[in-house]
């Protein structure tokens, strides 16, 4: 359509739309002749106009609902005019209009005098269009007549329905002196009793109307007037809005929607129940002084009415009784079905509430002012104290878990008795007792009896608790525990099966299994089978390692491995809630315990699991005291289910993935266990040391949230890795051991003992270290038949013994398990060979050492780690004997494997070895630097720093190669990563201790390269922990170069004679040969030919098969040795 065409149509449409249908038809007829197309268009538009609501209704609803409902006119336009109809002073029919009462969209209200009866009346003049529209008028008259027929004290009486001479409709109704509820509310909320009284009256009037088939539809405070006698009258019956859409089109004002029911705001058909709603809103407002549904504008109010739940009246105003709140909320049910079935029922309820209120008031008053509050307050205080005391009391005496609930119930029962007693007492005071009184129960209600009853109740409770505990322990009756009944051994090993997950969230199963395992692991009554052990069992059963551990498979594992029971959990979803259930069954499938708890939503799952697990532990037979001392799971782990899910994705303890742990921590930064896991994982991988230390620090700060033993493990790790306070670390481990002295067979206790030993090894206190390793192995012996892997403790013990010079004892320690392995037909684990080789090398018995590594290399061709370790061992053996070419070849071989399999730390060691051999043995600095560049050039600084205590070897090589400046720079950069000083000359005190030792060692070599011998001496001498021998060759060289021959000799001798298990790998592979050679020369120079001959002989023997390029040095030594021998005869 063109714009021109439209401009023709527009005025015609406006003209036609105002015409009566006959005139319109005639006009259209006329148009049709001159322009049929125009006529067709107009007809179509007019039809569309008439059916617009029908045609556009659902469309407009879709676009956005509220704006097409009857609230088009803003409140500002509602101001009543002074005399809109100009009636004041006029007489209409027999009414003399005296003044304006009010006005609004629904018509204007005048006060008038009935000249016939001489009484005041109210005249309501209806909007003119009501009179002109026949349908509206008819409907109005029908309703008004019905209303006029109503005769009820709470409904405003209608005297007459009339019509002015001008044809305007009016209603004459009773005029009441008084105020509307709206005016009353302007002064604030009503007393509860008053509000109920008014609501009750309104309900009564409405009930009558509803019986007559009349629905008011516009109940609001302004329509309720309370006369001076306190009688409520409902106004405006029959005047209520009758047809929402009709009014919409005419743009009528309907005032505030605040009292409209949801169905009314939607313009749906309404029935009597809409009045129930509106009355509910009025009652709410009377009680609280506030409207339940509020908003800054109409649409917001409507939105609130439709979809928001009102604030419960008691929250808005505390003194509203609960039953009245329930009543109001029932009236305000969004669904009409949810409201009262009829006004009659509401009336009854309101009346009952009023009575209850009346009587409640009276007994409170009867107690006399002040008394009730004193009694109630006293009881509340007492209850509070008892509840507070129950928890610590329960933990101290190990009371049953239901004690708290039982005490609460006892207190709750005492309360009504207290009230009744108080009433009876007051009644007795006010009226002297009669014989009749005595015959009733009233005489029982004395304060003394109340107190005695209370004491009796608590005594009964105490007996019940004692009986329960006794039955538990003795295995009698339902409280008997499984252990007491002999159905499960104490400290049985249990397998936790994978959760049966019936929810859509596939991560929930693993998360709950993780959490359940954590909780059960805290129980001293059972032992949770470690994942490693289960994995090994599954391997033996030839199951796929990743197989789902369903209850059946778990039982099979338990049966084969002789474990005590299987725990199988299920998580199911019920609506938006969850059900967590856990079953404990014997390996044969007998159900021992079944527990189940529900959670309202996902945030309650961890709590539900905690309750299930605690109940299970109680049934098994854990002491109640121990159970009570276990912190809740949400505290031990996290209250954030998402974080727990992430955490459960991190894999087994030995090979945790970093990413999910970081994810869990991002969701809950107070997840102490995850911080610990992160620290351990980073430490195991040798990655990001700064982050690792931060993780340990965070775990340490949050350690109060952890289970008791974990807490001390974290403290120990923190002191070991972060503060370097080794004695603190030792005492933390000792606490772990002391926590459970009776059951040292626990793996955690064992690892605590082992770690104490390791710390003493680090502190170079070998004798004490030896004690602790022996304790670990003793436990191993008490549990013979169980092949527990305490190999680490065994190697550590051998190391301590070797360090003490007890080589034979060390060898015995290492060989002891070999016969058992052979007897069982099992392969001897590779570390045993490695350790034996290391021990032989520590005794300088290289000929015996070699076969161990050869066997290891041949037996373990499949295992890259052990094979490369064996190759590296053979390389070291060759190197110490001066066979550098062979050593280099083997080292390259090991490094190729290590490089291929990403064994980066070992590869780094290999590269440093290659450089050191060139530097210290061959004296070829250029070649050494070349090696560093080619072997380590691809590594980033961050990766290299991740090698921690190994890293300073790199700058040390630079220093030894005559590049002290570069060495300094590298060291400063390294120290800065740990927040250490930027000044490279400072001592690196901020470094973690295990790093500090090698850092100082490197600094010693820097000083040596700078010919600062005193500086070097001081650096080397400050190394007090870690490696006993490591500083010695450097220190000796410093003395030697400074010309302090005696000191140099003493230190060199200490180096070659001090027993040390790890000496081959610590130093000997590049330092022993040159040290022996130099020792011989120094003795020779000092004129001690006997000592010189001794060391020449050792050197010549050691390097007898050395490489050809080293042979000149061997020959020189041999020549000198022969010379001395000849000279000395």
């Amino acid at each position, binding site marked *: 359509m063109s714009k021109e065409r439209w401009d023709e149509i527009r005025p015609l449409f406006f003209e036609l739309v105002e015409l009566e249908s006959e005139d319109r038809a005639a006009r259209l007829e006329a148009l049709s002749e001159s322009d049929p197309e125009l006529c067709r268009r107009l007809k179509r538009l007019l039809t569309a106009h008439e059916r617009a609501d029908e045609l556009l209704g659902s*469309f407009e609803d879709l676009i956005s609902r509220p704006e097409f409902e009857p609230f088009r006119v*803003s409140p500002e336009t509602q101001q009543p005019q002074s005399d809109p109809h100009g009636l004041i002073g006029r007489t209409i029919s027999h009414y003399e209009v005296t003044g304006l009462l009010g006005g609004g969209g629904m018509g204007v209200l005048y006060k008038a005098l009935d000249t016939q009866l001489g009484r005041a009346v109210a005249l309501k003049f209806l909007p003119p269009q009501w009179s002109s529209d026949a349908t509206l008028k008819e409907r109005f008259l029908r309703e008004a007549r019905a209303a006029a027929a109503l005769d009820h004290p709470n409904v405003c009486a209608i005297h007459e329905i009339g019509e002015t001479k001008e044809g305007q409709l009016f209603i004459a109704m009773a005029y009441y002196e008084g105020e509307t509820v709206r005016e009353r509310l302007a002064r604030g909320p009503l007393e509860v009793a008053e509000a109920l009284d008014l609501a009750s009256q309104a309900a009564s009037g409405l009930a009558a109307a509803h019986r007559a088939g009349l629905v008011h539809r516009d109940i609001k405070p302004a329509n309720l007037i309370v006369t001076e006698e306190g009688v409520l009258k409902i106004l405006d019956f029959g005047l209520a809005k009758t047809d929402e859409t009709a009014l919409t089109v005419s*743009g009528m004002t309907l005032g505030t929607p605040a009292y409209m029911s949801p169905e009314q705001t939607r313009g749906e058909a309404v029935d009597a129940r809409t009045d129930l709603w509106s009355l509910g809103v009025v009652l709410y407002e009377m009680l609280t002084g506030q409207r339940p549904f509020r908003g800054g504008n109409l649409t917001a109010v409507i939105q609130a009415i439709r979809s928001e739940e009102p604030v419960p009246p008691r929250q808005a105003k505390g003194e509203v009784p609960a039953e009245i709140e329930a009543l109001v909320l029932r009236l305000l049910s969004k669904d009409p079905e949810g409201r009262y079935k009829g006004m009659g029922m509401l009336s009854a309820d309101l009346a009952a509430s009023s009575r209850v209120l009346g009587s409640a008031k009276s007994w409170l008053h009867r107690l006399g002012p002040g008394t009730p509050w004193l009694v109630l307050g006293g009881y509340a205080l007492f209850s509070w104290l008892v509840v507070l005391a129950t928890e610590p009391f329960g933990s101290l005496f190990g009371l049953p878990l239901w004690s708290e609930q039982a005490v609460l119930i006892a207190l709750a029962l005492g309360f009504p008795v207290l009230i009744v007693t108080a009433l009876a007492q007051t009644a007795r005071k006010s009226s002297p007792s009669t014989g009749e009184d005595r015959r009733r129960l009233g005489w029982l209600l004395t304060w003394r009896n109340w107190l005695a009853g209370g004491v009796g109740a608590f005594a009964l409770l105490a007996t019940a608790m004692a009986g329960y505990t006794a039955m538990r322990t003795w295995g009698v009756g339902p409280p008997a525990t499984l252990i007491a009944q002999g159905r499960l051994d104490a400290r049985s090993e249990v397998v936790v099966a994978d959760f049966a997950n019936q929810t859509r969230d596939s991560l929930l199963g693993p998360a709950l299994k993780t959490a359940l395992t954590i909780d059960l692991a805290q129980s001293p009554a059972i032992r949770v089978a470690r994942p490693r052990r289960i994995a090994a069992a599954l391997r033996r059963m030839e199951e796929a390692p990743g197989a789902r551990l369903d209850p059946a498979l778990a039982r099979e594992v338990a049966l084969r491995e002789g474990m005590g029971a299987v725990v199988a959990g299920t998580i199911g979803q019920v609506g938006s809630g969850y059900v967590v259930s856990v079953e404990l069954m014997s390996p044969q499938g007998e159900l021992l315990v079944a527990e189940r708890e529900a959670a309202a939503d996902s945030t309650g799952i961890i709590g539900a699991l905690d309750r299930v697990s605690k109940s299970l532990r109680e049934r098994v037979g854990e002491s109640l005291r121990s159970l009570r001392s276990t912190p809740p799971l949400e505290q031990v782990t996290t209250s954030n289910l998402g974080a727990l899910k992430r955490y459960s994705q991190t894999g087994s303890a030995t090979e945790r993935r970093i990413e999910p742990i970081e994810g869990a921590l991002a969701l809950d930064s107070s997840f102490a266990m995850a911080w610990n896991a992160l620290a351990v994982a980073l430490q195991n991988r040798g990655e990001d040391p700064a982050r690792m230390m931060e993780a340990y620090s965070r775990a340490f700060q949050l350690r109060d949230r952890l289970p008791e033993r974990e807490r001390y493990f974290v403290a120990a790790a923190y002191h070991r890795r972060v503060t370097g306070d080794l004695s603190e670390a030792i005492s933390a481990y000792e606490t772990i051991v002391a926590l459970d002295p009776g059951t040292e067979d626990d793996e955690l206790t064992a690892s605590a003992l082992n770690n104490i030993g390791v710390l003493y090894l680090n502190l170079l206190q070998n004798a004490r270290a030896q004690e602790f390793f022996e304790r670990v192995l003793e436990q191993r012996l008490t549990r013979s038949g169980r092949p527990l892997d305490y190999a680490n403790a065994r190697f550590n013990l051998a190391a301590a013994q070797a360090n003490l010079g007890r080589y034979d004892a060390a060898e015995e320690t290492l060989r002891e398990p070999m016969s058992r392995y052979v007897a069982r037909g099992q392969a001897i684990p590779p570390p045993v060979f490695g350790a034996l080789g290391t021990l032989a090398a520590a005794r300088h018995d290289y000929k015996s050492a070699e076969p161990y590594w050869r066997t290891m290399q041949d037996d373990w061709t499949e295992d890259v780690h052990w094979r490369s370790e064996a190759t590296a061992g053979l390389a070291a053996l060759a190197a110490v004997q001066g066979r550098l070419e062979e050593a280099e070849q083997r080292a390259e071989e090991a490094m190729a494997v290590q490089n291929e399999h990403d064994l980066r730390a070992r590869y780094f060691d290999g590269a440093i070895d290659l450089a050191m051999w060139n530097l210290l043995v061959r004296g070829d600095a250029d070649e050494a630097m070349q090696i560093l560049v080619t072997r380590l050039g691809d590594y980033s600084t961050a990766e290299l720093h991740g090698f921690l205590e190994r890293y300073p070897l790199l700058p040390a090589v630079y220093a030894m190669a005559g590049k002290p400046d570069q060495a300094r720079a590298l060291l400063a950069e390294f120290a800065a990563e740990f927040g250490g000083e930027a000044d490279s000359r400072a001592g690196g005190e901020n470094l973690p201790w295990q790093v500090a030792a090698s850092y100082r060692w490197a600094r010693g070599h820097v000083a040596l390269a700078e010919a600062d011998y005193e500086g070097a001496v001081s650096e080397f001498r400050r190394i007090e922990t870690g490696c006993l021998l490591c500083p010695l060759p450097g220190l000796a060289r410093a003395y030697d170069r400074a010309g302090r021959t005696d000191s140099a000799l003493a230190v060199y001798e200490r180096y070659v004679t001090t027993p040390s298990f790890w000496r081959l790998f610590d130093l000997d592979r590049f330092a022993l040969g040159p040290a022996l050679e130099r020792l011989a020369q120094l003795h020779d120079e000092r004129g001690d030919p006997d000592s010189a001959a001794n060391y020449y002989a050792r050197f010549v023997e050691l390097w007898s098969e050395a490489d050809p390029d080293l042979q000149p040095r061997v020959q020189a030594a041999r020549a000198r040795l022969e010379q001395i021998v000849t000279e000395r005869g």
Partner: protein
Amino acid sequence: MEPQSSSGITLLLRKVEGGDRAALDELVPLVYDHLRRIAHHRLIGERSDHTLNTTALIHEAYLELVDTDRAHWKDKAHFLAAASRVMRHLLVDYARRRNAYKRGGGRVRVDLDDRIQHLSGEHAEAIEDLHEALTRLEAISPTQSRLLEQCYFGGLTLEECAEALGVSRSTVARELKLARAWLACELNPDLVA
């Protein structure tokens, strides 16, 4: 865009009232960002079963952006008129993306915002239909197109429409009758007189 101070918007509204129609166009971008933000917020809200209540949203924006103490109630009409235009564009934008998704329009795209799922397909189609009809109406009768835009997308009352368009309330009532009739014809091509 810099967040606008409420007094800035109020001043612009003053200018509109003073007859500066260009100021109305200046208002649009100022209101745009704010509305887009709260509309997005609402659309990605949890209650996906509800259609967006644009009126409530625009009124909220008015309360937030305009210094209501200093603003005349006529300012509100101008503000709401500008907001209606913004809301129309926002909703049409959402609807198009929603509809494209529903029809599998063109290539598969995986980066579609989740939030558009919260606009029901029916709603989205209604918005597109209305937008296209209003564009057609604009060619023959810009005032009526504006009027419908204000009613449907902004939920303005007749008084507010009258103020925003600078005509009397009765004129607005009359024009709205015709505009709705026209729209009813457009949306129901099979309608016979």
